[in-house]
């Protein structure tokens, strides 16, 4: 018999308990083979059976060795609740059960002496989401008719790039009464109002990244939907940099500058401009912290693209400059503008924060018009890897902050000059069109989304602590791993097809939301179209309270 000590880890300390029914098990071994976390293992149990034959008790015992599936009692190989075992079991003999009595947050810290790291998203669920307390409540009827979502045409595009105030447009009227522009103006690209958010090659498996890139190209080339994909910080395959599909990519640079060596070297060979440059200052899931790619995911091809050894890759929390972060970011803006000869818009991404309006004001008042977009990322965003304390306890919800920034622009008469793009938990319930539409009516020009894209591809993680193991490199869906065996679980074409189909569905849903309020172009800032049954939400967002 094993001797158990009080502080030994047991299954009851772990977040998930594996329920196994030996009587249904065919011993096929599929579950053990599929569990990327090694959270279940085949074992042999010694069984003793006491029995009595005859009319009087004459206890006899029989011993047997039974092959079973067991859960290791380890904080290293613990079950993440991904449910792959259940998925592959032919007989429903095994499944993970959520353990409400888990001591995992305490035990892990006590045993490891280090902060807990994981991927995924915030797992502290509060009340109902703000966006679910808002409805599109201003319906066109009678003299102001609704449009027909099927028959009418809709302009579903959003600007990416710095927009000049009308009086700054360099127009002069010629003798034919036509306006002629006689100076260069900042570049602006009109794109679909949903950008596929910045997930790096490194955070994603190469097959997943390829699936997203394929879906983006297909949506553009075959469906006529001008969706753009942001590379994330981690470089871009050289073949893509030199291809015509670069025009669908927004290249990201963050404080680690990972991958930019290759991008810079590819510039002379580019046959298309990228769709834009996004300078990442912060992200909503772990504000104030830099990017993190754990060593276990730094595979050979990641080392090559990023030009790094196999080690934990940490982007610093700040961009480094001799004088200040403003100085370094401004230098970046100027050098990127110049590098692409002022043809490519350059935007900035920051984490939503109590100070976001100040940051936005600084940018929108900048007289040189260098900032081509303000990407604001809220607390409900996802990440490949972070300290759990940052994920769960730092950050700022996106909805009111986006609204604050828009209203700050309105107060100054500068709405629209720096397009506002919002993210952070949008589409969390699966309905991205509804979330995006509400954000647009509150003042966003568009939204960006990452986590939902992974869910389209088959990610089974959720906000209740399921899986969220993107940091381990052991993604059971082959999405956030660089292990060839795991990555091959993902069929890139099927994942791309799912993403394309989701966007097609969302496109229809956008029209079904625009038509009833009688708008054929995006109702940016049309907060009069929204109502809320929650008084505090209505007051905070300056929309109509209804009951």
């Amino acid at each position, binding site marked *: 018999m094993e001797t158990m000590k009080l502080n030994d880890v047991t299954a009851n300390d772990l977040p998930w308990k594996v329920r196994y029914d030996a009587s249904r098990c065919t011993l096929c071994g599929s579950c053990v083979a599929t569990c990327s976390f090694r959270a279940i293992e085949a074992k042999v149990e010694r069984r003793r059976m006491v029995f009595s034959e005859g009319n009087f008790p004459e206890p006899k015992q029989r011993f047997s060795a039974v092959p079973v599936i067991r859960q290791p009692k380890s904080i290293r190989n613990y079950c993440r609740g991904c449910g792959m075992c259940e998925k592959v079991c032919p007989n429903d003999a095994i499944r993970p059960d959520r353990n409400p009595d888990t001591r995992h947050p305490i035990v892990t810290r006590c045993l490891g002496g280090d902060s807990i790291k994981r991927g995924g998203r915030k797992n502290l669920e509060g009340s109902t989401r703000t966006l679910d307390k808002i409805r599109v409540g201003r319906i066109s009827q009678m003299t102001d008719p609704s449009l027909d979502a099927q028959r009418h045409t809709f302009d579903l595009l959003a600007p990416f790039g710095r927009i*000049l105030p*009308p*009086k700054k447009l360099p127009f002069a009227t010629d003798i034919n009464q036509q306006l002629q522009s006689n100076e260069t103006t900042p570049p602006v690209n009109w794109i679909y109002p949903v950008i596929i958010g910045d997930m790096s090659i490194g955070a994603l498996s190469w097959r997943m990244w390829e699936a997203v890139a394929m879906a983006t190209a297909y949506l553009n080339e075959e469906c006529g939907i001008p969706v753009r994909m942001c590379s994330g910080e981690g470089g871009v395959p050289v073949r893509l940099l030199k291809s015509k599909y670069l025009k669908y990519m927004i290249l990201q640079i963050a404080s680690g500058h990972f991958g930019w060596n290759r991008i810079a070297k590819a510039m002379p060979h580019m046959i298309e401009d990228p769709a834009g440059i996004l300078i990442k200052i912060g992200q909503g899931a772990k504000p104030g912290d830099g990017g993190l790619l754990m060593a276990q995911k730094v595979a050979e091809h990641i080392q090559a693209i990023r030009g790094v050894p196999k080690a934990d890759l940490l982007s610093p929390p700040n961009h480094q400059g001799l004088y200040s972060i403003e100085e370094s970011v401004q230098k970046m803006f100027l050098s990127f503008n110049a590098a692409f000869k002022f043809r490519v818009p350059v935007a900035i991404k920051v984490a939503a924060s109590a100070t976001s309006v100040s940051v936005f004001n600084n940018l929108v008042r900048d007289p040189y018009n260098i900032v081509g977009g303000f990407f604001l990322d809220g607390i409900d965003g996802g990440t490949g890897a972070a300290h759990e304390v940052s994920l769960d306890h730092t950050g700022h919800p996106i909805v009111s902050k986006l609204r604050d920034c828009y209203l700050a622009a*309105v107060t100054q008469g500068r709405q629209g000059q720096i397009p506002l793009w919002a993210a952070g938990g949008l589409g969390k319930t699966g309905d991205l069109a509804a979330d995006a539409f509400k954000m647009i009516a509150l003042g966003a020009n568009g939204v960006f989304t990452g986590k939902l894209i992974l869910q389209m591809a088959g990610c089974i993680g959720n906000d209740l602590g399921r899986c969220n193991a993107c940091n381990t490199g052991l993604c059971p869906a082959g999405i956030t791993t660089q292990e060839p065996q795991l990555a091959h679980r993902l069929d890139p074409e099927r994942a791309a097809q799912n993403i394309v189909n989701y966007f097609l569905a969302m496109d229809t849903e956008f029209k079904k939301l625009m038509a009833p309020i*009688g708008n*054929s*172009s995006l109702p940016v800032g049309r907060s009069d179209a929204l109502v809320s049954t929650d008084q505090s939400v209505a007051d905070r967002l300056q929309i109509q309270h209804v009951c």
Partner: protein
Amino acid sequence: MCRIGAIKSRNYTHPSSALQLMQSQQKGHDNSGFAMVMQDLGGIFAEYKHLPTLSMACTDEGIRIAEDILHEAGFLRVLQWAPEVDDQPGLDINAMPNYVFETFSYPRHMRNASQREKEDMLLDTRLRLRTALEDDEQGFVYSFWPDVITLKEIGDPRDIGTYFNLWEADERFTAKVITAQCRQNTNYDIVRYAAHPFFLQGYTALANGENTFYLKNKEFQQGLHRGYLGFESDSQCFLYTLHYIHRELGWPLHYYKHVVTPLPFDDIEQRDDKKQLLAIRQSLAHLEINGPNTIIGLLPDNTMFTCCDAKKLRPVVIGRDEETVVISSEVCGINEILPDRDWETDIYPNEREVVMINDDLEVQRWKQ
């Protein structure tokens, strides 16, 4: 729903024509008010075209307040005219005690000022008057501008016509351009300022429709110009955009259409002037209008135009003879005042057209 109409003629025309134009369309509006702007004035105002005329409805106290302000600013009254009212019992009119139409000479220090300075001073003076008369609704100042008269009142247009003796034509009270509309604001509160036509610094606009981008327009316009205020009606936004595009930005009139109903992106891509059109769509995105509407506009040089929403959800028709051009929501209005015209030359503009009538009565159709 509103009905709107406009008459532009080589001859001086009495407002009775405008009443007739609108009367036949009464089933389409709700008979809740009458408002008109007369420009290029004849009759008793013909000799004073270069001097500003104040159009105001007010109480006795309101007159005193307004005249004090004007005298203090140095204006000297050169002409005063008040309509003879026929206050017979049973008329459906919510009349103010006084209707003031007074022409003033400019203050001495402004006489050598530039045209632009005078125009700005007139606007500032009107805004001062408006503010001063706002308390207790002492008065409503509709326009203070050379060669322009504005009248707005709440009630049945037929009775308003009777009250002001406007049904019988005479030579004293005429203009070459009259725009009119027969409905008070029924979307929001009944406020005299909310009735179109709206007027600002020589620009007039009136509309039949809804502006579903009202909030966006309003939030943007509030910061653009001190004269963009009130917003008692969502249609005021049409006037402010017209004023902004044509006067403040100095762009040719046809760009108004590109601002309020921009071409779809796919169409812009095919155009030689796509760079300009995209820049306009970008920088003036908050002045786009959505929703059904027809707009009639009038410029300081008496150019008149009309255009519709991008889906042609509201009607408008233009009829004409040698002497007169009439724009109307419904053709029955034109039939009333131009019964002998060649109706085959009537124009029913499409959703991408601007129909413009210049001061020589030449009608131009511009495709967006």
